[in-house]
């Protein structure tokens, strides 16, 4: 059975289509990523799967249950860590977990055991009696991840789990997420707009833009679409003969000379640099500078949408779009 199966999922907010007919399936035990810029519809997708928003059209099964039909059964099967903190700051860490486990109907002994267990997992045992208001951002996040686990969900949703955290905390959270997925076998769906995060964590990634999926595959296969690494050589002297010679090699996929920079696409670029420099010398051109670029999901995004993800985020119209999305989300 698939952990998630969505077909033709649509969400519209007063005529604005936030999620536009997406279909996908997530296997049990998979770590699945939704990658895209702000306002791409990632959170809206998760909110529909978590029964917080009703889909305008389409169907979705979570743990085999239809999200529109039996919302309570879906709610029992899932855990969710929201983008913005959803903790009660006046309560202590333990009280927040206590609240959660009671809402999920766990018995007293079971509650104690599991709360101690998850607190240890996220290393908050000694902060358990401190009011959450006094926690740092990273501690809050860890507590929320712990909370999402106390009722042993089959599927865990993480909405931008490391947004706004420092590099060290982010690394920590990545480790927890991996551990959970591999050791405890929890199916995890996470959204992110950090390329490295999706690349590092996810078994498969769906790239989302303007409410649609533009690509869906494993990170390595997505990067393979680009044909491999790019080695750029800055040359001195007439490079046309060299370019033609290199272009005839069977392991070179593309050779492009732009002014005095020759860009070559190949696999395992780091193993070819020495050979290329030698060939250049044989053709009477000097190499002033060598640059090796490994393709990232960033390049994949660029390849599919024609825009870099960061630039899009910073553009004023996109920022407005993201803000409108944010307000809509709050209003809904």
């Amino acid at each position, binding site marked *: 059975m698939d952990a998630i199966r969505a077909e033709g999922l649509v969400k519209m907010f007063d005529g604005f289509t936030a999620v536009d007919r997406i279909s996908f399936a997530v296997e049990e035990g998979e770590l699945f990523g939704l990658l895209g810029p702000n306002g791409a519809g990632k959170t809206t997708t998760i909110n529909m799967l978590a029964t917080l928003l009703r889909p305008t059209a389409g169907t979705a099964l979570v743990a085999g249950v239809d999200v529109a039909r039996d919302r309570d059964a879906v709610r029992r099967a899932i855990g969710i860590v929201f983008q913005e903190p959803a903790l009660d700051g006046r309560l202590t860490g333990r009280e927040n977990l206590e609240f959660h486990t009671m809402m999920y*109907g766990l018995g007293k002994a079971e509650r104690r055991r599991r709360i101690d267990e998850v607190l240890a997992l996220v290393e908050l045992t000694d902060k358990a009696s401190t009011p959450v208001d006094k926690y740092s951002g990273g501690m809050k996040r860890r507590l929320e991840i712990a909370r999402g686990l106390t009722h042993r969900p089959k599927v865990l949703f993480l909405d931008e789990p490391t947004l706004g955290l420092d590099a060290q905390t982010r690394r920590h959270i990545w480790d927890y997420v991996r551990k959970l997925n591999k050791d405890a076998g929890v199916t995890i769906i996470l959204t992110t707009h950090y390329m490295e995060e999706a690349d590092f964590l996810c078994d498969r990634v769906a790239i989302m833009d303007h409410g649609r999926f533009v690509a869906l595959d494993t990170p390595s296969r997505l990067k393979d679409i680009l044909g491999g690494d790019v080695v750029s050589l800055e040359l001195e002297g007439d490079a046309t003969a060299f370019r033609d010679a290199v272009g005839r090699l069977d392991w070179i996929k593309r050779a492009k000379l732009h002014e005095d920079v020759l860009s070559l696409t190949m696999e395992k670029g780091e193993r070819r640099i020495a050979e290329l420099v030698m060939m250049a010398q044989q053709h009477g051109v000097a190499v002033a500078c060598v640059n090796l670029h490994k393709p990232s999901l960033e390049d994949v995004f660029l390849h599919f949408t024609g825009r870099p993800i960061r630039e899009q985020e910073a553009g004023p119209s996109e920022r407005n779009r993201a803000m409108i999305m944010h307000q809509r989300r709050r209003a809904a």
Partner: protein
Amino acid sequence: MRIHWTAIYVLWKREMIRYVRAKSRIFGSLAMPIFFLAFLGLGFRRMPVPGMGGGAGYIGFLAPGIIGMTLLFSSSMQGMSVLWDKEFGFLKEIMVAPVSRLSLVLGRIAGGTTTSMLQALLIFGASLVLGFRFRGPAALPFALLFMVLISFTFIGLGLVFASRMKDMQGFGIVMNFIIFPFFFLSGALTPLENFPWVIRALSYVDPLTYGVDGLRGVLTGTSALPVLVDLAAMGGFALIMLVLGAYFFETSEGV
């Protein structure tokens, strides 16, 4: 729809923990009713109040009014606490729980009623210190009944507003244009007989009018309407507002 008792209990318990921890909030919300009681009660001490027999004086008239006011403010705030939870994100945690929406509403009402009853009882105690005398312990169960009904009514009203408002911005408007008129129209401070008929007509659609009048009836033995009429009206309002509040909360899309 199923009722999840543990969920109701834990929502109630959370409210209690928050109430006890927010000491400044407790004192802050008690200050205004105590000032009203002290300054109006002492200032108008020698003023005869039409319709108040038994030499109870203005404090006898005022104290039930201020108890009603305390219930009005704290209950509608409690109803609106949904908005706070929305603002601080905690509402999402509540909304994804596998618990019937009815249980969520009942949990809120349980927590809200308890805290506003505590507030009202503290004010009741303060009024005794300031010279208020009531008819004796036999009146207390009836007074508590009226207090619970007032509480239910305005928690229900608070839920209706909270379910349809997006954020805290509309909060001040609701306070100024809805909650305060309820207070002034109820006759908590002044006898209704002195109002022009237009205002008096409005007073009779204000639930708090019956609550305050009923409290006065059971505590001091003097009321403008028969206590049973007050009780019936108050019971009706409480029922209607609870159903409306629950309905609005359940049908709001939540997050």
